[in-house]
């Protein structure tokens, strides 16, 4: 066991994958010599050589598009978008080719590609560095979208993503890259994609979240405990395909659902959760399911970002509203 943060956990997963499978290649902007701007690929070029871990020209569409060719020819590319806000030039390749290739060639080609990207706010960043746009990827048929909330999950989910024969958008909550250290085994291990985790069992209300928001919910749960509210916290871990069983079972038990996220609210991941609550637990509901997510606005620059990010007090306030409905 070793105590590592999320960045180190991701490096470890990449290390295991590069070690185990010659077809794995890791590339993107500044991932080689620099080891990535967040140091996720640190040391990997030295260890595996610059034909397996390397810098690409500065062009996200080129990075994603070349991964299509590599994958068609039998490689397993793990590509990095430096920030999710810079990934949009690659969107055409993702939606027009990566997500569709298996279906349109009826299985002749598949796309074992992992697209890693740091996302989310709370780091006092400049424009385009704080958004949470997971819904746009989750909305594309053919893609799997994964978001870890801890070092352990980051390592196990990334290894599963790399070993998947289908494309995975792996979104990394950069706000908690170095927030906590956790004991993680040094052996390779996998966490299955598509399964949510019940972080804390509870009785009165189900709270579903993922990524950096989990920690904010946990802070709110301290207030909730004082107020006598027992919260069942579920970490979704995979955004698509969503684990409807785990969520449905929980909401049938508690009768209340609060989704907490940092993506814009309208047509966002919260809407999917509301739908699951209604479809899976309609007769058990004690209150209208509620989503607490970002405003339908651009994430404000640092001086105004506190209005946008979920704070534990607001989460507690919404928990109370639901319980007292």
């Amino acid at each position, binding site marked *: 066991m070793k105590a590592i943060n999320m960045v180190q956990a991701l490096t470890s997963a990449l290390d295991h994958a590069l070690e185990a499978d010659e077809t794995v290649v890791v590339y993107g902007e500044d991932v080689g010599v*620099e080891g990535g701007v967040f140091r996720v690929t640190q040391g990997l070029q030295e260890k595996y050589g610059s034909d397996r871990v390397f*810098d690409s020209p*500065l*062009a996200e569409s080129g990075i994603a598009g070349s991964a299509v060719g590599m994958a068609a020819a039998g490689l397993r590319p793990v590509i990095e978008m430096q920030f999710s806000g810079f990934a949009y030039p690659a969107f055409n390749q993702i939606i027009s080719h990566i997500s569709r290739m298996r279906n349109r060639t009826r299985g002749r080609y598949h796309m074992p590609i992992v697209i890693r990207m740091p996302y989310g706010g709370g780091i006092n960043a400049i424009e385009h560095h704080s958004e949470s746009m997971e819904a746009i990827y989750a909305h594309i048929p053919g893609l799997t979208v994964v978001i870890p909330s801890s070092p352990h999950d980051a390592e196990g989910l990334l290894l599963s993503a790399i070993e998947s024969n289908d494309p995975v958008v792996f979104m990394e909550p950069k706000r908690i890259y170095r927030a906590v250290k956790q004991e993680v085994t040094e052996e390779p291990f996998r966490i299955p994609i598509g399964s949510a985790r019940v972080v804390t069992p509870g009785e009165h209300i189900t709270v579903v979240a993922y990524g950096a928001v989990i920690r904010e919910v946990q802070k709110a749960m301290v207030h909730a405990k004082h107020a006598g509210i027992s919260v069942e916290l579920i970490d979704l871990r995979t955004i698509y395909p969503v684990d409807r069983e785990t969520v449905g079972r929980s909401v049938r038990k508690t009768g209340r659902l609060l989704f907490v996220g940092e993506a814009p609210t309208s047509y966002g991941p919260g809407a999917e959760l509301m739908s699951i609550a209604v479809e899976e637990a309609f007769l058990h509901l004690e209150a209208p399911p509620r989503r607490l997510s970002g405003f339908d606005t651009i994430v404000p620059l640092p001086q105004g970002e506190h209005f946008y990010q979920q704070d534990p007090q607001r989460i507690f306030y919404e928990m109370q509203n639901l319980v007292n409905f």
Partner: protein
Amino acid sequence: MLLDEFDPLHDDMVSVMENDGSVTQKDRQQPVSDEEAVDALQQMLFARQADIMTVSYQRQGRMFTYPPNEGQEAIQVATGMLLRSDDWLVPAFRELGTWLAKGITLKELFLYWRGYEEASRFEHAPNTLPVAIPVSSQIPHAAGLGFAVKRNKTDQIVCAFSGDGGTSEGDFHEGLNFAGVWKVPVVFVVQNNQFAISVPAQQQTASRNMAAKAIAYGMPGIQVDGNDFFASYEVMKEAFEYARGGNGPVLVEAVTYRKGAHTTSDDPSRYRTKEEEGEWELRDPINRLRAYLEANNKWSVNEKQLMKEYRKEIDRQFVEAENHGPYVLEDVFQWMHEEMPEELRRQKVAYERFLNWKEAQA
């Protein structure tokens, strides 16, 4: 004409000054008067001082991330001096010398990097687009501005910046292609400062240089020593005249060096050597222009006194930015649409209800 004379396919580069400030190409230095050269050095000194102090404010925790400009002042100030106030400026994010000349104030820049959207209004800089962080996403905008200028039959031009890394993005090529096809008055300036964060310019392209890319888009391309003020001035002057004269777009590659980090979050010692930095130090644009002026007895300014005044002025604007009014909830919502949709108003009201509850708790 320099644009005919200097062939990027032969890796030709316009330069006028040696590293010691001596002028080897006297005829090319003529368009700059002594007064202009002195003014240029003062602008370069001011821009550098502002840049150095901004990095230091950041280190003191009074600023967020900032991309330094140090070492790139010659091409930036030359461009700024030649741009007319009604010309369009399309920034990337590392053109401080040009921005200041166009009328963007330091206070606005401080506000921008301190995290206030309203800074991007650039109230005192007419015809200036906001900073573009996604690399080269601004380049097609320049083609569009050029189209509008041409259609309006004015003699304005458009000047658009990008960097060496920016030449790899699809948008860069699409923007140049549109400008070439439409034959619009746009001057594209690539500040080749040798590094896109950690990746050296040689790894961005197999082209001999960035200027050569112009050829495929049917426009002239020219390489200039971007640390040589006289060469930069002469090339930009000719490029602007060419575009203003209705001849279509031009691509200028200004060869320079980012002395500092990519941003204050970056550590250049990971990807380049002290030796390399030392070689470029010899080509520092400010030292070269100062050496020229001193050798010709044109620099009578008390630089120590001047720098003291600059520091005072820079700090005054920074403190003003630091004491800027509070960011209110309304600022998050009111600029999203011309009229706020009911759904957005509902979200704002819900948040205000929470704030009232929070206040009642306290």
